[in-house]
């Protein structure tokens, strides 16, 4: 009994603590993946090694460890740095162009393409039977 308890203390406890820590690291990393580093603006907080990114990862990890949800940490970041920190900003009036712009451009491109193809098809000369015969001869 004492031996199994000792074994438990030796192996299971530290590994579960390590597991909790690595879980925390994973959550911090996942969260850092979706947030922008404001120092190196084309990197996520996870990728950046700017001192501020290191501090912010530490801050996020501490908050998660204290029991904050991902959503609360995200709100903490947005309250300080604005929607700009989110790689997926929320849909609202100020971000409508950002979200809808690419689709609007795609739609405009599709409309242009369809119109152009139709015009070309309509402009195709109608071939008479004699033309078909001549073409067939040329291809022989």
């Amino acid at each position, binding site marked *: 009994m004492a031996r199994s308890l000792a074994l438990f203390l030796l192996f299971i406890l530290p590994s579960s603590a390590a597991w909790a820590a690595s879980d925390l690291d994973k959550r911090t990393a996942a969260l850092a993946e979706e947030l922008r580093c404001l120092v190196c603006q084309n990197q996520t907080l996870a990728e950046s090694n700017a001192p501020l990114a290191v*501090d912010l990862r530490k801050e996020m990890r501490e908050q998660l460890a204290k029991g904050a949800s991902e959503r609360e940490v995200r709100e903490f970041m947005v309250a*300080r740095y*604005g929607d700009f920190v989110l790689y997926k900003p929320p849909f609202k009036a100020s971000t409508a162009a950002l979200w809808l712009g690419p689709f609007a451009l795609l739609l405009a491109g599709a409309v242009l393409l369809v119109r152009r193809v139709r015009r070309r098809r309509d402009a195709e000369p109608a071939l008479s039977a004699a033309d078909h015969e001549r073409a067939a001869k040329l291809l022989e």
Partner: protein
Amino acid sequence: MKKLWLPLGFIGLLVLLGVGLTLNPRQVPSPLIGKAAPPFELPRLDQPAKTFTQKEMLGDVWVLNVWASWCPPCLAEHPVVTELAKSVPVVGLNYKDAREDALPWLARNGNPYQLTVYDGNGRIAIDYGVYGVPETYVIDRKGVIRYKHIGPLTPEDAQKKVVPLVKELRGG
């Protein structure tokens, strides 16, 4: 008429991208404008035993200037801050610095600050959304942030934005 669409679209795109080039991607609009200045109680740079809180400035229009001795743009804007401090109280926030570097820096370059607080680990700066020192905030009598400037203040920034805003806030 139909032929015009393509060049028109192209010119539109050029204008859009051209305007984009004139904007500074570092100037991210702060969500803190119009909000209460985040509370802090930090030790003073010169007297670690004494603390200072933003509450002590209530009733005054004041400027918070985030700086560090390791930050060359802070040195570049220092004469502008010095000039500004003649017309409005400026509180310094020494960001992730070492006292033994920061104090000689002030001795060397002059100390325009009413006082400087010491934010050694940068935790309070996170609350203020600081990401590119130097940064400068104008805070009104009620303790609300009215303006934030990211990067070194130029004499134009100070004369055209900060000074008029301080005047306006004092009048109101």
